[in-house]
């Protein structure tokens, strides 16, 4: 394999991974933009989404149906969490919401652990998705192409929703000035709900795609994607939609290049590098690539 094709192979793998992180990061970023809250349970919503899709897959349903089931599962889980736990806390200080989300995260992990088992699970094999996909010398699988296409489609739909519809506009307005948005007649709890629906649905997409790509699902499977989605959102500038996409792609590329080019002894700490980048970004540009610095008026 030539050096160039090796580079291109890493690039392709990095982009695929990056799209997954971006899908997770968007939901985190949108919730933060409106509630100024870091939803640590976001990864667990993703995990519950896949776990609810697994029985559908076991019944022999096609992959697209499993995907829809995952989206539905994650969305319902996200709504339940938002209605029962976050909604009553809407007027609490942000730190209360943050701690609550940590609690939800642990609760969901352990609930799923109790109801299933720690044994790793995987969706029923989908032979088409596992077939190799060649692009010149680059070798991927069909599932990777599906990830990229589905992620782009999901992002495009979200983008159009935010730009072109009245609720989308209201969501953006809410992130900029909540009380001014209320003065326009925007019903805040309803839009917070929409925000959770979008974020959870995208997490559900990511969850099922992760299931098909890696096929090693445990009740802890949401933890790392959730954390990396958070890092992606911070790198891009938390609260910014394009920022979350860019942050996810950067993070995915970085992780793959670290694994690909560093000696094995160093590459095995791949997750540590992600957080090293987080720390560097926070030191050099705390508001992220697309974020705006928050200033306190005196």
């Amino acid at each position, binding site marked *: 394999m030539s050096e160039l094709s090796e580079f291109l192979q890493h690039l392709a793998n990095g982009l695929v991974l990056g799209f997954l992180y971006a899908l997770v990061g968007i939901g985190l970023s949108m919730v933060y933009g409106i509630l100024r809250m870091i939803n640590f349970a976001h990864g667990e919503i993703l995990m519950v989404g896949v776990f609810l899709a697994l029985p559908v897959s076991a019944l022999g349903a096609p992959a697209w149906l499993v995907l829809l089931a995952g989206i539905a599962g994650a969305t319902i889980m996200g709504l339940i969490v938002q209605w029962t736990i976050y909604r009553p806390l809407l007027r609490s200080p942000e730190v209360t919401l943050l701690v609550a989300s940590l609690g939800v995260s642990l609760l969901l992990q352990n609930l799923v652990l109790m109801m299933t088992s720690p044994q790793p699970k995987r969706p029923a094999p989908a032979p088409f998705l596992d077939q190799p996909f060649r692009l010149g010398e680059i070798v991927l699988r069909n599932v990777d192409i599906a990830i990229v296409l589905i992620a782009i489609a999901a992002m495009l739909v979200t983008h159009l929703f935010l730009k072109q519809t*009245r609720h989308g*506009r*209201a969501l*953006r*307005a809410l992130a*900029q*000035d909540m*009380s*001014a*948005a*209320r*003065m*326009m*007649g*925007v*019903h*805040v709890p309803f839009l917070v709900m929409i925000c959770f629906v979008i974020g959870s649905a995208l997490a559900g997409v990511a969850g099922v795609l992760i299931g098909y790509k890696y096929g090693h699902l445990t009740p802890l499977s949401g933890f790392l994607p959730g954390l990396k989605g958070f890092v992606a959102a911070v790198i891009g500038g938390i609260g910014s939609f394009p920022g979350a996409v860019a942050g996810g792609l950067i993070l995915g590329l970085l992780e793959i290049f670290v694994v690909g080019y560093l000696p094995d002894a160093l590459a095995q700490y791949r997750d540590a590098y992600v957080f090293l980048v987080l720390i560097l970004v926070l030191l050099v540009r705390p508001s992220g690539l697309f974020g705006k610095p928050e200033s306190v008026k*005196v």
Partner: protein
Amino acid sequence: MSALATQAQSVAAGPLVRPSRSATPVLELDHVSINFGGVRALENLSLTLRAGEIRGLIGPNGSGKSTAFNVITGLYRPRSGEIRVAGHSVVGLRPDQIASRGVARTFQTLRLFQAMSVVENVMLGTHLGAQAPSPGSILLGLPASRRFEREAHERSMAALEALQIADYARETAGNLPYGVQKRVDLARSLVANPSLLLLDEPAAGLTSAESQQLMELIRNLHAERDFALLLVEHDMQFVSDLCPRITVIDFGKLLVEGTPDEVRQNREVVTAYLGTGELSAARTAPGAASEASATRAPVLEVKNLDARYGAVPALRSVSLSVASGSITAIIGANGAGKTTLLSTVSGIVAAHKGRVVYKTADITRLSCEQRVTQGIVMCPEGRRLFPDMTVQENLLLGAYNVTDQAVIRAALERVYALFPRVADRQRQQAGTLSGGEQQMVAIGRSLMAEPTLLLLDEPSLGLAPNLVELIFETIAEIRKLGCSIMLVEQNAAMALEVADFGYVLETGRVTLSAPAPELKARSDVIEAYLG
């Protein structure tokens, strides 16, 4: 630990300025400029303050008064220009370093440590410029540190006594009435014995009796301690009585400097700040409308309304009514409760007591969003546009609850007809518009839902005089569209020019109400309000 100690020592070793009648001015601003995101907040501002001098600094909201304070105290760094305290440049120094050179300030919005006692709050002020004992000595409770604490305590108590609030020393600062908290803030800034004191709106939110007392206190303190004083205040009476000389700034630039009388007679100041109340166009003509409105049914009635922020009362038993199709002006000093009144009518602030009746229905318990769908729309102070969205998107948000596309298109056209300048900028980001254009978009946005009752909060705030007139003429035109307007304005003369009826609000109470022409003719109202 040692780093902290050295820092304290180096601070203490700095040139501590004591009040003296030397030739060197206490404060010099030399062509100071600063920008905020393309907006000039200060432009070539020069100002000299002699030792012991009392100077007033006035200007419209947003003219750069607080920015000037923030630049002097080191919170902001000027883009260009020089700032000298007692002859030494302080540009680039940290706020604590500047404070240790004898510069103390109070804040426009109170910044006390709410959970600490009054005396603890004041003792914090003694840390500046003091030779603090080393942390080790504090931990060991050595005599030096105990002596330091005792002295700090004594000095703080003396400052509290000077401000006649020593009785409150042990109380938790956050629980005290607003007037007392303001004095605690003042005591904290005085305790370090500053040679230059910067007071940012000390009388804002005080009753006239309270501000009278405060003025006496400041006079006595000044006679005793001989600091130079730079005072920002909207209450012209307060400034004129206290300051032999006044500096007026507008758009961050020096407008004029002189005695209170000179300033009051200066034409530029009158148009930029005090207001002439002259509205040229015949477009406004209330005449017939005001007569007719007297007989019309009220669109809004407010009955014995109380509102409070925490324990601080903001509205006390306010009753008023807005006649259908009329413009009702609410005037009063800063902190009188005007914005709170509008916010309570719009539902942003909950009423503590009393009722809000809209078209014969009690809406006191309705949420802000529900009131918008019923036709009560607020255009908030400071415009509050969504800066990252385009002009068009901002306007569309105003029609959030309208689903009929034809109605939305008609509303857009109406707004663009009302403000042709805005029509040219549909695709521009709202945050990049000038202040006047932003105000037009804000008013336009609140008209998108075709309100029955428009609540306009300070529409002329921070606008150039010619734009102010344009805005007021537009307000009169909006009324012709069949919309009733409740108008809160700093510019009382101008507001009464377009209004049919006026209410004067003072410390949360309605103290006067009459048809606008009558209020306007009563020079005592204008005097009391504008100074």
